[in-house]
């Protein structure tokens, strides 16, 4: 009896050790995976950095190959954020403070549906439907606002341009910004809001004085997480943009982003081209890593002084 009991308790102790070991192992594995992503990309990218400049695509070394497409990536992400930030914040405000209470949750789910649609479907929609709708507006922009460099003509006849890609990206990052901002707005202290209303503030004044100052850090980090998504988004750009060299005009065919460059060329790549594309992926990885780390840092700092969990 005592032997079985001891065996049982010893078994339990082993079980405890195995289980906590497995849990710890899984946690460490995640750190190893992230580390491995960086190391494998670095190792596979090295030949591109050390190759003779003439061998790299474009013939003038890796830097002059990567800089234009990095700038293109930044332009696409910038367009997406300029469109998505105000709309996303307003949508979040609508759901948290303006919509009738009973509808709010359902409407939030509708906005989340935007995030559930796969990126390749957005790409197909942008290339076939959105681009056909934007031909005439682009022509108008080129005719009337052509003196602004970003609207310089002649407008693309297919409208598969950087601005179209940016709009599709905006649609894709909108639900991210909206849902994160909604969470922050809902955490804004109710007492401050009620105090503002009791002092005779209108709803907008209450939002401006009691909600937005509280949520400033959260909004910034939500926008940065959206930026991370826009920088790394591949399919929408690959399908929508007819790529070309870097140029200022957003309504002519041209420009390229890092992610789309990889997706379009990787399947046929071999030899040095393969290493080049992996190096481009490494650059993209580092950019998004920095953006995400800064965003998370802002969120965490915000958590500490707001008392919200």
């Amino acid at each position, binding site marked *: 009896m005592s032997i079985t009991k001891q065996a049982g308790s010893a078994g339990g102790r082993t*079980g*405890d050790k*195995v*289980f906590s070991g*497995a*849990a710890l192992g*899984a*946690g460490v*594995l*995640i*750190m190893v*995976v*992230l580390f*491995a*992503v960086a190391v*494998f*990309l670095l190792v*596979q990218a090295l030949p591109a950095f050390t190759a003779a400049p003439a061998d790299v695509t474009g013939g003038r070394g890796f830097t002059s190959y990567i800089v234009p497409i990095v700038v293109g990536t930044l332009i696409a992400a910038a367009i997406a954020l300029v469109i998505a930030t*105000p*709309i996303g914040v307003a*949508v979040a405000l*609508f759901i948290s403070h303006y919509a009738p209470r009973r509808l709010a949750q359902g409407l939030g789910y*509708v906005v989340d*549906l935007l995030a*559930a*649609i796969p990126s*390749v*479907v*957005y790409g*197909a*929609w942008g290339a076939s*439907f959105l681009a056909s709708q934007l031909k005439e507006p682009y022509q108008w922009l080129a005719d009337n606002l052509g003196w602004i460099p970003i609207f310089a003509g002649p407008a693309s006849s297919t409208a598969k341009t950087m601005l179209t890609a940016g709009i599709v990206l905006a*649609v894709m990052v909108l639900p991210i910004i909206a849902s994160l901002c909604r969470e922050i707005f809902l955490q804004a202290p109710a007492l401050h809001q009620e105090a503002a209303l009791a002092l005779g503030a*209108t709803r*907008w*004044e209450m*939002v401006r004085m009691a909600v937005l100052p509280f949520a400033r850090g959260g909004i910034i980090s939500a926008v940065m997480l959206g930026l*991370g998504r826009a920088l*790394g*988004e*591949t*399919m929408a750009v*690959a*399908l929508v943009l007819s790529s070309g060299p870097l140029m200022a005009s957003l309504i002519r065919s041209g420009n390229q982003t890092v*992610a789309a460059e*990889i*997706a379009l060329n*990787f*399947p046929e790549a*071999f030899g040095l081209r*393969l290493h080049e*594309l*992996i190096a481009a*992926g490494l650059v993209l*990885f580092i950019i*998004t*890593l920095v953006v*995400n780390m800064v*965003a*998370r840092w802002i969120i965490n700092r915000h958590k500490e002084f707001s008392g919200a969990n």
Partner: protein
Amino acid sequence: MSTLLTERKSSNLTRGRLPGYASYVTAGAAVVLAAALMALAGFNVLGWAVLSGLLYAVGTVTSAAVVEGRRKAVDRLATALVVGAFLVALLPLVSVIITVLINGIPGLLAPGFLGTSMNGVSGIQDNQSVANHTTVLGGAYHALAGSVLITLWATLISVPIGLLTAIYLVEYGAGNKLSKAITFLVDVMTGIPSIVAGLFAAALFSMLLGPGTKTGFVAAIALSVLMIPVVVRSSEEMLKIVPNELREAAYALGVRKWRTIMKVVIPTAISGIASGVTLAIARVIGETAPLLVTAGFATTINFNVFSGWMASLPTFIYTQIMTPTSPSNPDPSTQRAWAAALLLILLVMLLNLAARLVARLFAPRKGR
């Protein structure tokens, strides 16, 4: 009595405020005016709705500015902008769904779309079907099978790792330095671009098994990199809300920690964990970029994830659009692409719905 009522109506409290019916009057006027303007310029329903909304916003803001003063007018303007932004945000959702339905239904209903692969379907068959107006041959069976298998393997890899990590973070880590570091890295991992995850898997396997290794399993690894952080985050949230009293009661009865976790904590949280996992599956099943660089483009049915190229729904859509089977007659390929897109959206929506059902079905019973 009547004098009292009239006095109350013109009391100081309600002076300088628009009466309750003002907004209805403005709305009616806006709709009529918009209809009149549209009749001049050529009528369409969308333009009418947009114009009515704009006129209503302008009407309420100006009337408030005249009667109620600047502060109220600014308030109404803000309300109009916020509601307008929400409606604008709905436009792409509605547009995407309508586009996919209109373009996808004919292809999805075509006989054999769900039952055949693209094996043996070439430009010749597509040209013939366009010339003779016969049904489009070929289907997405191979892609559907590939998507299901790759996602299944990714789930098999991600769920144990993700769940165990969440258990470590909640039950063992308890805010120590390692668990803080893991939480931070998981957050950072959520932001890894999907194409980079694909490149990682491709680079890993080209070093292990030689360059150009493209199989379903490589794709599953790439998807796992994207899926693990999602599983960790959702499971962690669910484990955190398990009441501490349950754990303490189990410890008080002398139950070992691991048995407490297995028999008390996880069963309590299983509904949330299962729905989180389903949502994670819904997220990765639509990923295209990592599959593009890891699984290759197969046109035949392949059930073996460990050897040979494998098709999937997202890459099927992509290749059918970018490189039509018959370059001179892209219509059959476009039809197949939209049908596959509709199928993919249906799958994702079903998974989202399943997540909600799972959360409700497995929810711990309260009381008796």
